[in-house]
């Protein structure tokens, strides 16, 4: 009896599985098209917003169903699942691809080139600024539509600033300020001054290089840029703060966040996407944000985080539905829901100041202001080209880890690893 039930379960799930992969044939306009949408939006990071987006979209497009699927492990995790799904020839119709992985996906994965929609949807393309649209392009070809846009910001603990005799209304503007104020914090409170994010990616490192006037990758794409004098100077500064002056905490990513939220570190540089988490979890102190510190009088420049949407659908009906979904996500209504849910900046800057859309949100969330102020200075988060691009990123991450270990000067480490990386770039 029990077994029979189980057997029926198996059959049922078999049928369910089969029905999911059965795609409607093109031309069956009456039956709804189901598109899979892969994302990283967990319950605290845009999950509820996404559910709202899906239901509103489906209400407007009764002929399309969106099957949203959360993928763990953020953009890297999603990429791994995507690679395997592509190997099995059943990719999602649309997926969020992190900017750091975009060159790899655009170069290696079969996907839809989006330039053809420029004729049919000129209004859509006009609504998004060129410099943002460029984040989804390689050599002028539109591979993806930039969707999530985030900048790094400096979070700081206003209470620790006060305890150190500093004015929390005047956060550091340059790295020299960071060091000066950091000394005060260290002496008066015994806490670490700053934690620069150290996850398994190179966003912080690229931000430092851009900020000091360097480039993560040469313009012709033949050489990595982390052995330039600007990069070496920035990395040496970070190494000194971690090892000599002991102002910077050197620990793994989750540990660093824990240290900041528990009041053991006064400042923390990470994505604006964290603002809600920071606000809600800070242990009895006031969190504020400021733009990332500048190098002397050089202009502000940061790497841009987030994701672009790429269409992997092979069936024409699915592709059409996927494009409609993307257009909705980037519409003023869609972008408003998305920004409120994630803290990512809207790809359309103008809705940020529009009272019908995001103005109230930005007014209520002062933490977002630092990111808005950074937006005009956003540089791309370079993803290294060629089939070995992901390995190059890892070499760069390892170079940072070795730099922070402090056993060799930054210059030696960066020059050696840049050579290894250059050999992997396409000739």
């Amino acid at each position, binding site marked *: 009896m029990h077994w029979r039930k189980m057997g029926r379960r198996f059959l049922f799930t078999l049928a369910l*599985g089969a029905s999911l992969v059965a795609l409607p044939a093109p031309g069956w306009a009456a039956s709804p098209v189901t598109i899979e949408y892969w994302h990283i939006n967990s319950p605290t990071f845009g999950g509820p917003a996404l559910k709202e987006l899906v239901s509103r979209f489906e209400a407007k497009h009764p002929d399309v169903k969106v099957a949203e699927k959360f993928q763990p492990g953020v953009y890297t995790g999603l990429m791994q*699942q995507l690679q395997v799904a592509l190997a099995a020839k059943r990719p999602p119709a649309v997926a969020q691809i992190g900017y750091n992985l975009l060159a790899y996906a655009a170069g290696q994965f079969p996907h839809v080139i989006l330039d053809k929609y420029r004729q049919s949807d000129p209004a859509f393309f006009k609504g998004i600024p060129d410099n943002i649209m460029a984040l989804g392009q390689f050599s002028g070809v539109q591979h993806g539509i930039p969707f999530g846009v985030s900048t790094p910001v400096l979070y700081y603990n206003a209470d620790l600033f006060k305890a150190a005799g500093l004015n929390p209304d005047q956060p550091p503007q340059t790295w020299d300020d960071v060091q000066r104020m950091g000394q005060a914090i260290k002496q008066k409170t015994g806490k670490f001054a700053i934690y620069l994010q150290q996850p398994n990616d190179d966003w912080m490192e690229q931000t430092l290089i851009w900020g000091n006037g360097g480039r993560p990758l040469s313009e012709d794409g033949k050489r990595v840029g982390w052995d330039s004098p600007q990069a070496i100077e920035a990395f040496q500064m970070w190494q000194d703060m971690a090892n000599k002056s002991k102002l910077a905490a050197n620990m793994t990513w989750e540990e660093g966040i824990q240290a900041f939220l528990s009041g053991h570190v006064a400042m923390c540089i990470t994505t604006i996407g964290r603002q809600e988490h920071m606000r809600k979890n800070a242990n009895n102190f006031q969190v504020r944000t400021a733009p990332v510190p500048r190098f002397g009088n050089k202009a502000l420049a940061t790497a841009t985080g987030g994701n672009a949407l790429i269409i992997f659908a092979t069936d024409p009906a699915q592709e059409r539905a996927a494009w409609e979904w993307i257009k909705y996500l980037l519409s003023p209504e869609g972008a408003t829901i998305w920004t409120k849910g994630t803290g990512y900046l809207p790809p359309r800057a103008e809705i940020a100041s529009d009272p019908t859309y995001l103005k109230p949100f930005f007014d209520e969330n002062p933490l977002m202001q630092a990111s808005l102020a950074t937006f005009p200075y956003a540089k791309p988060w370079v993803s290294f080209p060629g089939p070995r691009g992901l390995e190059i990123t890892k070499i760069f991450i390892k170079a940072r880890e070795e730099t922070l270990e402090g056993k060799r000067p930054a210059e030696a480490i960066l020059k050696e690893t840049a050579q290894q990386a250059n050999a992997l770039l396409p000739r």
Partner: protein
Amino acid sequence: MHGLLCLACALIVFPLFWMLSTAVKPPQEIFAGTFRLSPERFTLENFRAAMTAVPIVRLFVNSLVVAFGVTVAQAVTSILAAYACALMPIPGRNVWFAFFVATMMIPFQVTMIPNYLLVSKLELLNTYTGLIVPQAVTGFGIFMLRQAFRSLPRSLVEASVLDGANSWQTLWRVVVPANRTAIAAVSILFFINTWNQYLWPLLVATDRSMKTLPVGMQEFVNLEGGTMWGPLMAAASMAILPALVAYLLAQRYILESFVTAGLKE
């Protein structure tokens, strides 16, 4: 001795206490800057959040079905193969044994992708069958049970044979009952391993409705937007209960069979 044992217990069980204590703390206390085991303000909010954010009952049922299915399948295939390798006069049985045992050394990353592609071709993604069948055999189980079966007094098998029982009857009437301890022991391990397994269900169960607990719980971990420590630990606390209960029930049984086995000898 009690002192030493208590200390060992405290050390070993501490991470579990920490998990439980985090599960009943409000977010600000989770990030309290000092170490503190008991919450200042006890809350069940994390459990509520865990239950509403993910379909936890569904995840639970899936985990249970998969763990149970895999355990039964692995136990049956292991018993049969171990019996043949240990007690039946078949040609090349040591080669067969080596054939099975060698699988223990194969990194699972090797089998993951080909098996995924196969399961996908058979349209078994997001099904219990796809989750269970590819892991229905384990070299570890065959290895353990073969060792156990071999130490069975030959006279027992002999007697059964002389009674005219065939090999099938001998297996279920003599060999399995005499080795119920070993079988229970490996079955617990199968169950716990499957219950906690991550990579295979991550690939095969992509629909939220087919995910297992360890995969579903990943929704609380987000390195971009921030990890929800409270609900994560609350979900984890709920997830260990079945495995712990399974062990509690089985360990009493194991203990009894050890004691009776000891008395007989």
